């Protein structure tokens, strides 16, 4: 081995060691500060982790864009939903009078809230855009109870790291981290554009997460669970989306 190649060898070795240590340190820090998404395994894990970590550092408290009333879409588009199950049809026929939202998991006071209970929380309305991963979008006014009000009323415990939420429709559930769960614009939405939330848009109750793509805004919400780990839910990937091949974090 001559002098040049030895020097090159040593330099390359040092660079590789530095690089690998850097990645290891970054991974440790990311884990400590909760910057690793639940679907971080597999070949797309590095990209997802970079996206989620970068956005959590950049957007923890930022507000989704709100629009003037004049920009509300005259033709909001309701995406297709699966045929309703019997439980939903029953609620629909009774005008959702018996619809309840249960709040459980890592909360001091688990609760089962009726629609009128939800309406007694402070009301927030916001004019935000629904952004579908397919590419289309519309703007609507969304009216409801901020999720953080409901979580605080239930006494969410400090060790909670995620809120998992379930639709009345089977296999339709999502989760968000506390940055989104406690975000002022994350809304348990029961009204839209001045009227009750139409069924096609998720009525009677939809969780609107305006800083993420539309598929995180699950329709027909019946249950919220606060948790410190997503491992026990479904396949442990965070929500139904990664199980169907879609990213858990949809802020992109």
């Amino acid at each position: 081995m001559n002098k040049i190649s030895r020097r090159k060898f040593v330099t390359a070795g040092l660079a590789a060691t530095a690089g690998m240590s850097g990645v290891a340190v970054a991974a440790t820090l990311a884990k400590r500060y909760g910057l690793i998404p639940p679907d971080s395994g597999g070949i797309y894990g590095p990209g997802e982790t970079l996206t989620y970590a970068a956005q959590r550092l950049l957007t923890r408290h930022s507000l989704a864009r709100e629009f003037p009333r004049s920009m509300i879409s005259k033709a909001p588009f309701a995406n297709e939903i699966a045929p309703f199950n019997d439980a939903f049809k029953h609620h629909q026929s009774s005008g959702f009078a018996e619809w309840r939202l249960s709040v459980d998991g890592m909360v001091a006071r688990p609760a089962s809230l009726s629609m009128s209970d939800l309406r007694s929380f402070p009301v927030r309305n916001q004019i935000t855009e629904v952004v579908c991963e397919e590419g289309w979008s519309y703007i609507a006014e969304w009216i409801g109870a901020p999720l953080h009000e409901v979580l605080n009323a239930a006494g969410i415990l400090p060790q909670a790291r995620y809120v998992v939420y379930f639709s009345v429709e089977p296999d339709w559930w999502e989760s968000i981290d506390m940055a989104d769960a406690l975000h002022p614009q994350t809304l348990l939405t029961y009204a839209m554009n001045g009227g009750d939330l139409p069924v096609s848009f998720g009525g009677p109750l939809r969780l609107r997460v305006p800083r993420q793509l539309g598929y995180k805004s699950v329709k027909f919400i019946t249950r919220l669970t606060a948790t410190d780990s997503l491992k026990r839910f479904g396949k442990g990937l965070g929500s139904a989306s990664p199980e169907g091949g879609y990213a858990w974090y949809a802020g992109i």
Partner: protein
Amino acid sequence: MLSGVPDAASLRNSDPPRHAAFVRVTHWITTICFFALLISGAEIVISHPRFYWGETGNDLTTPLFKIPIPASRNLVPTGYGYVLPDQNGWSRYLHFEAAWAVVLTGLVYTIWGLWTGHFRSNLFPAPADRTWGAFWGVIAKHIRLQRPDQAEAFSYNVVQRASYLIVIFILFPLVIWTGLALSPAFNSAVPAAVNVLGGRQSARTLHFFLSAFLLLFLIVHVAMIVLAGFPSRMRAMITGTRIIHYRRFVIPSLFFGRGNRFLLGRGSDSGDRQRTVEDRT
């Protein structure tokens, strides 16, 4: 413009490679990422092959234009009686992973390029070439299907330089910006990123056209490489080997007849550096 053409005797194994190792590595990482972005981007477009201008747009609003293809969602009014399979899950994962890879590669490349003077010496046109005359001269030569100068095996001509600079410093930054402007979370942190583009749907439409321009560049780039001598140009970008010509220039010879081939420097160089050059008569 033709200065720096090496003659056979001046070519030695100790010569610097045609393309620096750094350029070669970042070039191929970018190539892989670009194909990943192109394929996954096309799949995502198929789920909604309609484009709009402004902030919002959906199946119920009038599109700016539609791509006349079937869609992978059945509510999209495409006019086709069938729906393609949904490929958006992996496409989206791949799109953003490849985007990260190409952005990080681009950052490192830009820093390296500024640090080493790569942009100044290899990409910015030489002072003598900064004229429309020099520019049109190269274009005219291409239109007449003339073979590239020997110099062009060792240095980029002014049109190449201009196109590469446009791709590196205009199209790539714009396609990254318009892509970021489609992220609802990024927009919450930097609302101006999408607002100055005229809204979300405008950003999406611009992202599409910028991708189309990049694809157009890719097609012309590959066509030029094929015309200039695919194996020699590929070898130069893979191993860095300096080679003038390796293969006949196929298409122009239909017009100009067979050129004479002769070997340059055979025997005077080590075996792995054998070069051939086309006679340009």
